[in-house]
């Protein structure tokens, strides 16, 4: 079994010994289309005409991968490909990447090399914080207006004396008498299920009857989720523009978003692009007899549409857009919620326009490259431009208000529309809570320093153990090597990320891993001192040391797990390697060394054991 595990270890550690290729990854910018053979050929053509050595190229998972000889060629290739693809009049992401060179038979077994963290690859790490508190407050203010309007409207008006937002999630209305309050209460409970309604007597001579509307935690969560999701979507849309090969955009906790952009060096540019927001415009379709000056021409699904120049409302009035299902037909629909003023505006525009069509225009600032001849040389100019497109055109079937729906959509359509609507809706503010940039040269240096530290540390321990325990030291050293191999294999197969502190963890593991062997050996020595025959001494040594090893390692593991749970990024990396190292070292020291020792001295009578300075 020990041998089996060792072989598995070798297999899964192996991919790490194949140095990755410098590569360029090409994918279609937006729309999620796959890159075609023809487009890849255009890129390859451009490279070979400029004498860039191409190692290999392939189309995989919708994007093209071109492998190159070295880093210089890679840097030279990127603008060449960009330039060539520019002529194809479509958007492409041309990103620097590193491609694993794991042989096919290893990949078939699921063996992949370890991933490097940003501190080893170079790149930018952002921790964005979404200002969810003000998103909740904004929504509460919208609700306040909405409720006031509902009190004022209709035949049975409810006169309220005042209203205020008490704390982050509670709205208070005050009334002059008890009856007004109870009428208000029943009306609110009817229409606004998201509030927990309680009464409170307030020290106010004119209006002592207070009604507290506390937003439930679930609704607060919902608003927060929406705000974070929306920003998450915005960032995902933007990251493509940066041309990053393997970006990571992930929610962290209640209100934070982690953005890892490997390979990106220009943080200022990255921030500018990430910070851009999209917006929406709701417009009615122009009537056929509208004058030329009052219309805006657009296209929708390949056909020309003319929209009214007058705007109904903008995206900042949109609170929410979710995919739902029509209860009658079961078909997907998109439910849209506006703020109260938005509802008012929508109502005013649609009430006399039932039967006409309303369009939603999605507006986004993007950047594009242009090539221009300047002084006899072609230079690349990156310029911003505004992209406007109609994302929905639907017939108004009734006077619309604060919430309405767009029906008649296919499943995927509804989802995409909701995403776009959310991306253009009122964005909760987002700011950078943490930023870490590591230059590419520092990353490379960290890898080298880390590798040297591991190698030298390992070498020192090996020499020490040999000098101290002779043949048994050799067994311990082989076990230590196996341990290192297993550690790398486990890290690789878990696709754990290796960071600089992670390397430090490996170094520490190398130093501490021999402990188990040392414990076993000193037990064996003790037994020998008691004149126990060598074979029995070996057995007793392994057995008696086992409990100690288990206790000592489990407690250390406990600490490592705590470290993992409290740590962020790099510290987590340390905790991971430390934990895995403890487990693998227990295995190799107990099982591995035992197998070796049995192999060497098992089954034959021996008189002397070479285990340290005291010969018995």
């Amino acid at each position: 079994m020990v041998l089996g595990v060792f072989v598995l270890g070798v297999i899964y550690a192996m991919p790490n010994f194949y140095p990755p290729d410098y590569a360029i990854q090409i994918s279609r910018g937006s729309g999620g289309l796959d890159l075609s053979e023809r487009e890849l050929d255009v890129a390859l053509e451009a490279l070979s005409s400029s004498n860039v050595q191409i190692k290999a190229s392939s189309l995989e998972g919708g994007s093209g991968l071109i492998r190159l000889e070295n880093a210089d060629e890679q840097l030279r290739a990127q603008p060449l490909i960009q330039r060539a693809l520019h002529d194809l009049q479509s958007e492409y992401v041309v990103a620097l990447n590193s491609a694993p060179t794991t042989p096919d038979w290893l990949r078939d077994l699921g063996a992949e090399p370890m991933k490097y963290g940003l501190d080893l690859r170079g790149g930018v790490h952002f921790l964005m914080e979404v200002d969810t508190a003000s998103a909740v407050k904004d929504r509460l203010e919208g609700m306040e207006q909405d409720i006031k309007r509902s009190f004022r409207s209709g035949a049975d008006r409810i006169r309220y004396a005042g209203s205020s937002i008490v704390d982050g999630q509670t709205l208070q209305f005050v009334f002059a008498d008890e009856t007004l309050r109870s009428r208000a209460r029943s009306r609110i409970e009817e229409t606004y299920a998201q509030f927990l309604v309680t009464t409170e007597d307030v020290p106010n001579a004119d209006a002592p009857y207070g009604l507290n509307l506390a937003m439930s935690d679930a609704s607060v969560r919902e608003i927060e989720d929406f705000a974070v999701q929306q920003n998450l979507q915005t960032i995902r849309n933007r990251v493509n523009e940066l041309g990053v090969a393997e970006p990571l955009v992930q929610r962290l906790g209640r209100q934070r978003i982690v953005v890892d952009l490997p390979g990106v060096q220009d943080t200022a540019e990255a921030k500018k692009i990430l910070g851009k927001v999209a917006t929406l415009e709701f417009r009615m379709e122009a009537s056929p007899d509208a004058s030329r000056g009052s219309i805006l021409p657009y296209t929708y699904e390949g056909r020309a549409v003319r929209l009214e120049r007058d705007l109904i409302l903008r995206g900042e009035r949109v609170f929410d857009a979710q995919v739902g299902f029509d209860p009658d037909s079961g078909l997907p629909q998109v439910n849209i919620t506006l703020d109260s003023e938005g509802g008012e505006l929508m109502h005013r525009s649609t009430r006399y326009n039932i039967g006409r069509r309303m369009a939603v225009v999605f507006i986004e600032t993007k950047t594009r490259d242009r090539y221009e001849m300047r002084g006899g040389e072609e230079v690349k100019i990156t310029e911003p431009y505004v992209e406007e497109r109609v994302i929905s055109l639907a017939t108004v079937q009734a006077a619309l208000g604060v919430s309405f729906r767009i029906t008649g959509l296919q499943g995927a359509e509804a989802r995409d529309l909701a995403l776009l609507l959310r991306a253009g809706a009122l964005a909760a503010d987002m700011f950078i809570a943490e930023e870490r940039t590591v230059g590419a040269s520092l990353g490379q240096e960290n890898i080298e320093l880390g590798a040297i530290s591991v190698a030298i540390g390992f070498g020192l321990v090996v020499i020490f153990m040999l000098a101290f325990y002779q043949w048994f030291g050799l067994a311990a050293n082989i076990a230590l090597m196996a341990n290192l191999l297993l550690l790398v294999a486990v890290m690789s197969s878990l696709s754990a990320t290796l960071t600089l502190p992670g390397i430090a963890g490996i170094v520490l593991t190398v130093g501490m891993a021999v402990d188990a062997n040392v414990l076993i050996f000193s037990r064996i020595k003790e037994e020998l001192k008691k004149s126990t025959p060598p074979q029995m001494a070996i057995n007793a040594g392994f057995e008696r040391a086992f409990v100690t090893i288990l206790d000592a390692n489990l407690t250390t593991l406990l600490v490592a797990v705590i470290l993992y749970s409290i740590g962020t990024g790099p510290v987590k990396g340390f905790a991971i390697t430390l934990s895995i190292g403890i487990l693998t070292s227990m295995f190799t020291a107990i099982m591995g060394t035992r197998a070796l020792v049995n192999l060497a001295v098992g089954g034959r009578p021996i008189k002397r054991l070479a285990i340290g300075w005291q010969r018995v």
Partner: protein
Amino acid sequence: MNKVPFMKFRKIAGMGSIVLLVVAISSLALQSLNWGLDFTGGTLVEVSYPESVNPEQIRLDLDAAGWNGHVVQYFGSDRDILVRMPPQKDLSDKDNARLGDSLFASLVELSIGDVELRRSEFVGPAVGEELANQGGLGLLAALGMVLLYVSFRFQLKFALGAVVALFHDVLFTLGIFSLIRWEFDLTVLAALLAVIGYSLNDTIVVSDRIRENFRSARRGKPVDVIDESLNQTLGRTLITSATTLLVLTALLLLGGELIRGFAIALIIGVVIGTYSSIYVAANVLLLMNLSREDLMVPVKEGADQDSMP
């Protein structure tokens, strides 16, 4: 090997430990730690110049360019410069996050040759505070878990001994960082937790032996039993410390500037952890009058479970 009468010196060692701890605690109380960027928040930019530069000149240049509050220092070599800025209270969070970019732009402008960005970090004040709280919580959680585990596997007196030893090690290491004004950042915190792990490892091995010897039929005063146990484990304790110190020295000398603090904290911790597993943990056991009865279990031979006396 000759026997070392460890426990003969336990009073002196105990006094020594107490004195050192008092020094550590007073330093921590008086001048706290030299908190790194991870905990204070702020901005840091590390740049590399093609030739050796004078940090004083860069500081003056930055002064002239209108910056203030910056600290300029060498980082690793005389071509690498680290500039730090504390969080600017009069700026919004958004503008604080942009400081690093404009600082780097200034450095590029002020330099004649090429300046290469090696690293830039910004930590918002809120995040820094959170990290500090989480870190402290983590340390306490680790100690608490140890207390539970050891009292479950061994016995409460051992658990207290182990936790006192860990407190001793952590405080001592922190004290040195405070006294020498070494920077305390996230990696040092990680190292501190690793120190807990390491020192615990040591203490458990020693405790394990003490328990075993108490249980084996031999008679003897607790002091003698503990002394014998310490002597039996001494070889192992020294060898493991030696190998660990070897690799840590390699890490300190070769691992680069970024993990220097980490390596230093661990080296201090390993040394003090080795000492504490001999003198602190065992001392506490004697102070609490550990007796054979504490360890007598009605269970069969084997050391897998202990009940309270």
